[in-house]
């Protein structure tokens, strides 16, 4: 290799390094900008949520769309979750001769952790992407601007109603999913055993207590809030035409799902401090 070609190679490699450094810096700045704007967006929610007029009818409509319409999906997921967890756990417990612990173990796992997290992830996929795409599409077709110029506050009508519905509906869906998951677990136990319905649930309730149920329920309010808030933020601030609609739906699901794990980690730390 000649010295000239070595110099060119070095130059190219330096330029590539500088480019990747710049793009790294750019995405880091973008990340912090996004966090700041999302915080501002959330603060606006708290500022406007108590101020009249209240969009009660739209809140009910959104609760129907977000909650009731998600019921079949959540029910199926819950059933499979309970059934599969029971089938997968049985061999390990059987090794230690602890098969009789199966109902209690499955119940604690589902109620404390798996039920809320899996339901929230399903919810982020279905509801989060829907909100992100819907608001982004409204933004690019000037529907949000049209609301604004007709003197209606689009933030109240679109964001507050969706965030409130999502915050209220997810805990209900988690209760539904947990309940159906327990029925799935009961069937799972009986695939290779013979446990009566009454015995199964008496074992479940014997081992479950307030400290299992209460923190798990509280965190689902935060999951619902963060999924809807992130989705609304992404959709409401979409600005790249039709490409932006897909991007908003996608990032609503990705960031919404990530937020579930982060919130779950925080919730577990807080719970372990008090209980």
């Amino acid at each position: 290799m000649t010295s000239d070609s070595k110099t060119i190679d070095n130059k190219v490699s330096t330029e590539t390094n500088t480019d990747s450094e710049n793009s790294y810096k750019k995405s880091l700045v973008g990340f912090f900008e996004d966090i700041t704007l999302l915080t501002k967006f959330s603060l606006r929610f708290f500022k406007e949520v108590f101020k009249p007029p209240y969009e009660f009818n739209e809140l009910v409509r959104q609760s129907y769309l977000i909650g009731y319409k998600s019921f079949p999906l959540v029910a199926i997921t819950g059933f499979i979750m309970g059934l599969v967890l029971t089938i997968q756990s049985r061999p390990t417990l059987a090794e230690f001769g602890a098969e009789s612990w199966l109902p209690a173990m499955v119940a604690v796992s589902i109620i404390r952790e798996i039920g809320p997290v899996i339901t929230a992830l399903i919810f982020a996929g279905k509801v989060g992407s829907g909100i992100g795409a819907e608001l982004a599409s409204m933004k690019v077709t000037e529907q949000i601007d049209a609301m604004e110029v007709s003197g209606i506050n689009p933030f109240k009508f679109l964001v507050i109603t969706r965030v409130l519905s999502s915050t209220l509906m997810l805990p209900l869906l988690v209760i539904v999913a947990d309940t159906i998951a327990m029925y799935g677990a009961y069937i799972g136990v009986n695939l290779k055993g013979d446990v009566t319905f009454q015995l199964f649930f008496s074992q479940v309730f014997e081992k479950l207590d307030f400290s299992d149920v209460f923190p798990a329920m509280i965190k689902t309010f935060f999951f619902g809030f963060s999924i809807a808030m992130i989705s609304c933020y992404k959709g409401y601030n979409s600005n790249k035409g039709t490409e932006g609609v897909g991007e908003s739906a996608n990032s609503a699901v990705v960031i919404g799902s990530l937020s579930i794990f982060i919130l779950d980690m925080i919730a577990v730390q807080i719970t372990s401090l008090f209980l």
Partner: protein
Amino acid sequence: METIVAEVENLKKGFGSNKVLNGLTIKVKEGENLVVLGRSGSGKSVLIKCLVGLIEPDEGNIVLLGESITDLEIDALNLLRKKIGFLFQSAALYDSMTVRENLEFPLRGNKELKREEIDSLVEEALKNVGLSEAIDKMPSELSGGMRKRVGLARTLILKPKIIFYDEPTTGLDPITSEEISLLILDIQKKYNTSSIIITHDMECARITANRMIIIKDGISIAEGKFEELEKSKDEWVRSFFKSKNEN
């Protein structure tokens, strides 16, 4: 003495290094249709969005119906917006709602109106744009011209004193364009509204304009009636009309 309903003074707006409006000044009299003409990217849509507070100007003052919108709080601005109509280029109909719901939407929050009054307002607005039969249709079932008409009906439902039209005939065939232009004229006469019409459709300008201004590089470079500007000595101004005559 003629009443001024909209006044823009020394309006400046830029996006980064791109200065779109560079000190634009315009006045609209009561009952007047003012057509704003300019090439694509000359700042016409930015002007109209600044007028309703969708874009915040960098400098300058905007007074609508005697109120300076740059000084208004959001609640006061929303009250003022109820007296102003805006027809978007895409009509911006709410696609999850029927035509009836679209028209009822600006009326929400008005607790004084009874159900029957709302129904009669919706029917009247649709009748005025000749689309009574479309009341229960979804926006996706309407043609481009029909969507514009429904957009206009939604604007009319609040009986605005000023209407802003953002390229009302864009994307329409010549016959539908003419129908929309005549409708704008009809609404002006019927409701005595004042309008700012952003367009580069010369036929629409000819039909609707009481007065016109032409924007270049973010400032008004010519002002007058259609016939006066058509005979302008400025070659650039005349070029707009030349294309129309060629068509």
